[in-house]
């Protein structure tokens, strides 16, 4: 097996055993990127020289016994909205085209502490706003399973890079499904942790109350390992929560006997592709065969999640993105007259269409006279959705469903109709509104050969339940191939 076909855990083990060095692993990843990324465009920045230097330093520490962790020496990619000191961090936006942070995000620092070698920054929808990675200023990323299709978004670059074997694993961020939906489209495993589990310090905010950084990898084991590496209670992030336990790998057990799994009937209505529905139900059957108690139930309020999400996320975004004004860093219009003209021109030229649409939407819902009707109502809806999940988790350990209504659409199909694109977030958004953890892992392919994702949601702080269910399913399913790899 090629190095880059291995999971992160397998690669880490070989490195620790001395069968290859961290430098060899980094070179193998960089090689793959050279081979494939011109077509796929997963990366905004590939940091070759620094990556090799970092790998050499890591290798020394592995040899000296300073680094002994399971992921030491493993190449990793980081989504381009996560700050990395001295390395371009653009959010795939023209307005940050030249921005090099003076500090690293807590999650990025934790990767470093685990001895992982960052090889580059991955493409995304501009400021994480989008479901296809087509809104990037640096051009769309293509789905490695079929390059006429999108990889999903907004963490499309990270998911496609893992699926293509350009890196062993990656960090993404998930505000409304941005880890789980592209994981579904790219046939990789992605986990959105409970809100407050991974520090947001250094994550360039989209919707602050919804954003979470999470792992994207080849399988459930890698996700659990990577989550263990990045999760922490961080005093620099006031919304970070001190959890009782940061042990996620002990949940890697092939056992769902007696586990109660609920399937929301509401998730299998109109708009769900029959092939997706069949694959997801198949996965449910597999878990039932392994001893889980699987039943259907009515979750309710599903239709309200999308409007509530777009009001809250856009409102926060309109304020979060105000700092990009051409004054301190990033893009500034070349010609302008006076301060206000400089603001207007820099922002008009620096932001793309989708970002501007959401800034305007968010500014509108916060404006005086509309705040109560839109923003407050959305917050109340959010609270009701949380209650609906609370009721569901009284009965079930895990909620099972699809991650997206379809498999990956073709490039250019989604952006013409933003409302339709927003509706594609229906299965993922509620987890962000309720703060819940969710994992998406492949459960088959459709007739076009595109991957289908299975989503498992857990109650807050119950990552271990969804990890255990996902791991058990994975044991039944067997190893899922990389894009283009023989099954």
């Amino acid at each position, binding site marked *: 097996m090629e190095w880059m076909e291995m999971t992160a855990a397998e690669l880490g083990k070989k490195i620790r055993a001395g069968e290859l060095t961290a430098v060899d692993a980094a070179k193998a990843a960089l090689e793959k990127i050279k081979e494939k990324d011109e077509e796929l465009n997963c990366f905004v920045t590939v940091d070759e020289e620094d990556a090799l230097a970092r790998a050499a330093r890591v290798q020394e520490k592995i040899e000296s016994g300073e680094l002994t962790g399971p992921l030491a020496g493993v190449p990793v990619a980081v989504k381009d909205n*996560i*700050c990395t000191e001295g390395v371009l*961090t653009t*959010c795939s936006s023209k307005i*940050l085209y030249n*921005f090099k*942070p*003076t*500090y690293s*995000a807590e999650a990025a620092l934790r990767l470093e502490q685990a001895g992982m070698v960052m090889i580059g920054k991955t493409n995304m929808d501009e400021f994480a706003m989008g479901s296809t990675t087509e809104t990037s200023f640096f051009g769309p990323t293509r789905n490695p399973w079929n390059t006429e299709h999108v990889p999903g978004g907004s963490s499309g670059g990270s998911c496609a890079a893992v699926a293509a074997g350009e890196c062993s694993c990656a960090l993404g961020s998930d505000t409304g499904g941005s880890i789980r939906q592209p994981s579904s489209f790219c046939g990789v495993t992605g986990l959105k942790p409970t809100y407050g589990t991974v520090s*947001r*310090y*250094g*994550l*360039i*905010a989209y*919707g*602050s*109350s919804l954003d979470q950084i999470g792992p994207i990898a080849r399988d459930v084991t890698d996700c659990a390992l990577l989550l263990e590496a990045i999760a922490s209670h961080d*005093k*620099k*992030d*006031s*919304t970070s929560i001190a959890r009782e336990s940061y042990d996620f790998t002990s949940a890697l057990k092939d056992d769902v006997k007696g586990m109660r799994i609920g399937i929301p009937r509401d998730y299998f209505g109109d708009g769900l592709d029959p092939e997706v529905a069949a694959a997801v139900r198949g996965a449910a059957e597999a878990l039932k065969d392994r001893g889980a108690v699987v039943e259907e139930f009515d979750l309710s309020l599903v239709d309200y999640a999308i409007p509530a999400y777009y009001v809250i996320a856009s*409102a*926060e975004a*309109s*304020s979060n993105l*105000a*700092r*990009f*004004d051409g*004054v*301190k*860093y990033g893009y500034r219009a070349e010609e302008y007259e006076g*301060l206000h003209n400089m*603001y207007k021109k820099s922002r008009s030229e620096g932001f793309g269409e989708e970002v501007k649409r959401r800034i305007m939407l968010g*500014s509108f819902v*916060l*404006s*005086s006279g509309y*705040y109560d009707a839109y*923003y407050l109502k959305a917050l109340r809806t959010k609270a009701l959705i949380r209650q609906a999940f609370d009721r569901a988790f009284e009965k079930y350990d895990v909620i099972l469903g699809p991650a997206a209504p379809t498999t990956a659409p073709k490039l250019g199909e989604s952006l013409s109709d933003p409302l339709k694109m927003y509706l594609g977030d229906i299965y993922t958004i509620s987890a962000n509104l309720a703060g819940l953890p969710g994992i998406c892992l492949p459960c088959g392919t459709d007739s076009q050969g595109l991957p289908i994702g299975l989503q498992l949601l857990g109650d807050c702080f119950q990552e271990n339940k969804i990890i255990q269910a996902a791991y058990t399913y994975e044991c039944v399913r067997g190893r899922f191939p990389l894009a283009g790899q023989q099954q």
Partner: protein
Amino acid sequence: MSKQYETVIGLEVHVELATKTKIFCSCSTEFGGAPNTHTCPVCTGMPGSLPVLNKKVVEYAMAVGLATNCQITRHCKFDRKNYFYPDNPQNYQISQLYAPICRNGYVEIETENGSKKIGIHEIHMEEDAGKLIHDEWEDCSLVDYNRSGVPLIEIVSEPDMRSAEEVIAYLDKLRLIIQYLGASDCKLQEGSMRADVNLSVREVGAKEFGTRTEMKNLNSFKAIGRAIEGERARQIELLEEGKQVIQETRRWDDNKEASHAMRSKEDAQDYRYFPEPDLVPVDISEEWIEEVRSRQPELRTEKLIRYKEEFDIPEYDAKILTSSKQMADLFEAATALCGKPKKVSNWLMVETMRLLKENGQEPEDLKFSPEHLAKLVELADAGTINSTVAKEVFEHIFYEDIDPEAYVEEKGLKTVNDEGALRETIERVIAANPQSVADYKGGKEKALGFLVGQTMKEMKGKANPAMVNQILKELL
């Protein structure tokens, strides 16, 4: 002017809190410093940075709230106020709108018309902005974020004041309370206390308030007084002419003693306030409130009573001594060291006030240490130096904070108590002034004073005046 008008005034007072670090990061709040040296990713609004609340800010805000009889909000929250300006690095200010930390308080003021309660609508916490400096030479603007994120509280009064006198009494009361709490130095000139005046006029007896204006840029109590008089006159003139007062923000120019409109209500920005998602609500427990309450220092009202009772200081003097925390602290510390409250009070009331006035300074500017004042009191009291020398030494303490003992020693200012030396000098003075001697003997008491003066002059002021008197009389 045929009608009688009443002025209605409410104040918004911003106070910079005396924390060592900023409200949402650990940068220093120290004033001065090269531009952008007290900064970090948080207070310069770098992408991805997040605020973390400084607990001390909450405690100071609570302390001010408790001292002004406010209710403390148990579950208080921060909100974002959105507006674009380069001194505001995130283009939003973290402030409090929906659940400010303190509400419904009051302070009692005293004016010539007796005492009156001025209501406090709310006190909220927020962050200060940076400073813009326009470079005329280069024709560009520069931003210094050293002040960005310095903690502020905004104290919003009810429209309960009716005159400049009441406004100044209210501000003075707030200033003293906050200084005594140690929550701020409250210097108007330096901007650590800033007041915006909301003012309207109405006919005496009217039920409704008139249209109000907000006056900004008031940098001293005097400017506030003048601005209130000016704005009252301007509004009355408009009404008398049958015109309307426009609701607007005006800027006071104290040199011209006039104001001009900055922006009208129509231009007012929509700040699109919403709850700050990067901070969690602050839950204030009963225990925390009690802890802060128990640490509240003695405030002025209590000190006034104590000075009268404990030190037997007259009311008028006690008021002056407590008119600033700096002065009261000096008084108490020096008294504790020398045990002579009346003497210490005397130095502060007379010489200190005279020198402050001469230099156009405020009691907050006092720099000398209580140890040196206490030593001076002791030196004078023991007769080691006479009162003339003591005054001279005090001036050096006032300006340079010298150690009086060392100074007296070094300059040879000790009173001469050596009888032999005195006798010798006095004999010389008597021999040199036969006319005065004759006058004295002829019954002119005044002539003795002249001879004492001559002796002191000969002794360069260091003679013990009582001894001089005694020996002179004896020899004559």
